């Protein structure tokens, strides 16, 4: 799950006095700000900025770090990605398609289901904390645990899921992880089960941040439950929703472990995702130039999706 790099949503806080003693910020020398930023800046430059720039350099070569000769190929790695018939064109766009499909199927579910759960868990009832913990619990598991667990549960011939379906008199030969569309249903289902806790917690925090006075006012105006949800809850959750959607899209677009472990990319290479293909090209076949070029194409695509996402929310709001 790649959730790093995204800032927490701005939760509104009362803006009052800032610091009460000491020098005013204006008195600080121009260096102060940089000093405060220095630790993060150093990490950012070493682990993000330099690799990003270096990656462009790598993508312009046939780059294998272990070989003494790394021939310069200019934009060939990029050209190959857009030339039908090259060795990378087919598998790369197929894997991009797989990532796109997974994102398309999983994001709506991962945005809606946690919202519903959060609304329920925000009510006052006995055992609320127990359920909050239960829904969050799968999220603490690592992808390896989740993957191997579900690979065995969903096995078409020896898995528990089909066994219980059969015991209930339902079809017991569903190829959960070896045929379409079942493989996608399984991957999306497992991912929703696994990660919905995270989004639920974010929603819960957002819900608790909505001023109860707004609900009271709406009630006084005669708004029913649905109207209160549409006119108070949803606008109140807007920044949280933007965060959840952005993070979920990026996390879904980075999907790798689930299909690697549960479906092994099968049938054929239908569930081989972009991150998987890039990792395989770069780290297993050691064609790092080509893999770097693919990374930039993927990153660009994700940047565009995120921009569209932000634009959409801004347009609606203001």
């Amino acid at each position, binding site marked *: 799950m790649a959730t790093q790099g995204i800032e927490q949503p701005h939760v509104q806080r009362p803006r009052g006095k800032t610091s009460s003693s000491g020098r005013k910020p204006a008195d600080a020398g121009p260096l102060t700000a940089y000093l405060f930023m220095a630790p993060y800046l150093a990490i950012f430059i070493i682990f993000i900025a330099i690799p990003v720039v270096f990656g462009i350099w790598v993508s312009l070569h046939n780059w294998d770090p*272990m070989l003494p000769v790394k021939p310069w190929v200019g934009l060939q790695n990029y050209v190959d990605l857009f030339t039908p018939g090259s060795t990378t064109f087919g598998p790369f766009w197929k894997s991009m398609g797989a990532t796109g499909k997974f994102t398309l199927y999983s994001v709506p579910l991962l945005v809606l289901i946690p919202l519903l759960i959060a609304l329920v868990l925000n009510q006052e009832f006995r055992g609320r904390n127990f359920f909050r913990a239960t829904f969050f619990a799968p999220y603490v598991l690592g992808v390896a645990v989740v993957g191997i667990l579900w690979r065995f549960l969903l096995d078409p011939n020896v898995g528990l899921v089909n066994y219980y379906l059969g015991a209930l008199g339902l079809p017991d030969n569903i190829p959960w992880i070896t045929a379409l569309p079942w493989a996608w249903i399984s991957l999306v289902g497992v991912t929703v089960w696994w990660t919905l806790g995270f989004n639920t917690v974010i929603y819960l925090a957002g819900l608790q941040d909505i001023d109860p006075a707004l609900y009271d006012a709406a009630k006084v105006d005669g708004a029913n439950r649905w109207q209160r949800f549409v006119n108070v809850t949803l606008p109140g959750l807007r920044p949280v929703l933007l965060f959840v959607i952005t993070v979920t899209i990026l996390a879904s677009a980075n999907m790798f472990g689930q299909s690697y472990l549960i479906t092994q990319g099968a049938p054929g290479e239908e569930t081989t995702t972009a991150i998987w293909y890039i990792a395989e090209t770069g780290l*297993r076949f*050691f064609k790092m130039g080509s893999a770097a070029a693919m990374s930039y194409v993927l990153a660009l695509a994700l940047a565009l999706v995120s921009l569209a996402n932000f634009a959409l929310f801004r347009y609606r709001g203001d």
Partner: protein
Amino acid sequence: MGRRVTRQEFLLMSAGAGAGVVLAGCGGSTTDLEKAGSGGKSYNGPKVSLSFWNGFTAADGDYMRRLVEEFSSQEKNIDVSMNTVDWEVYYQKVPATVQSGKGPDLGIMHITQLPTNAARGVILAMDDVANELNLKKSDFAPVVWDAGVYNGKRYGIPLDVHPLGLFYNKGTMEKAGLDPNSPPQTKDDYMAALEQLKSKGIQGHWMSPFLFTGGLTFQSLIYQFGGELYNENVTKATFNSEAGVNALTWMVDVVKEGYSPKDVAQDAEYTAFQNGKNAFMWNGIWNILELDTVKGLDYGVAQLPQIGSQKGAWADSHNFVIMNKRGQDPNKVAASKVFINWISKRSVEWAKAGQVPARDEVRESQEFKSLKWQPVIAKELPYVQFPPPVPGIGDVYTGSLEPAINEAVLLKKEPEAALDEAANTADQLLKENKQKYQAA
């Protein structure tokens, strides 16, 4: 201590220190390292600690660890510490760590990985080990010995061979009225047995669409039908030849005829075998170690049945390699050779971990012959085959043939069409690899 250093040792040590400095400066003179030591006969340098990596993460690791401990207790000046990493991670990690000078001093690699790692400068040539120890082709199974050579140099000392064999579940065979002590060995017998199992409602051979074990089954069958994966110069894929199509068609027919369920997932055939849901499994000999721990499972191992026109079986082999570590101390290289020689001679202990020793004298020893299933599988050695020793050959398989077999066995594509398409991709990948490794 207190012993005076002899002149010879002093010279050796200063040479070592000098070489170390030079190596650290220039990133490694491979030839100097390759010549270090006396080829593995003995070690009389200063005390060194060796880091030995391999991918024996299962019970086989315990056998290797015991050997390592025994060696360390005998050789006072060589201390070996063993580290296991999952094979897939291993092949990604080792090159990077070796290049940074922090990786292992020696390790194990599959014979199919030797050319790639030799070409990428990860491992050192070991011709002197073979010469000094007087290891000859005639000491080893020839197929293993030849496959360890790349560009005229030897890069691996073979430890074992681990072919695919026929595992048969005696309980299931009995239930279907088959003789549990005579596993089918010909095509006719095999098909008859599958038919009989089917009549009793048992799907006898679960056909996996994945590399383990479907891909290994295909590679065995293509040899049986008289074909090869690639042409002699390894410039073109030939797995879409008639032999290849026959091989894959047979696999697909096993599914179509109902001898196998459709949609077999990864390892499902293995689970089914343990539970007696199928009768036959084509799998690697190393599995005996785990199958022996399964309660109530009565099984046997035989040579693969002959489905095609001749015998043939996929196999791989673990080889000792010495890392071309940056800034490496020649003493460590010399000590590594001693270690390799020592283990190689005791490979019968290793055979107990579900392996066939590569050394003839070990395979012919009474101790080996008294093992239960290993000697049976050892009989496959005359006809096992490896993929050609060409760098990057594994990538070609993964990028072309692997998905083709998968789609065919899952009944998504016709065998011939799947193989033709894959061969087309493979030809391009072979060409790219050739350019890549020639430029180096």
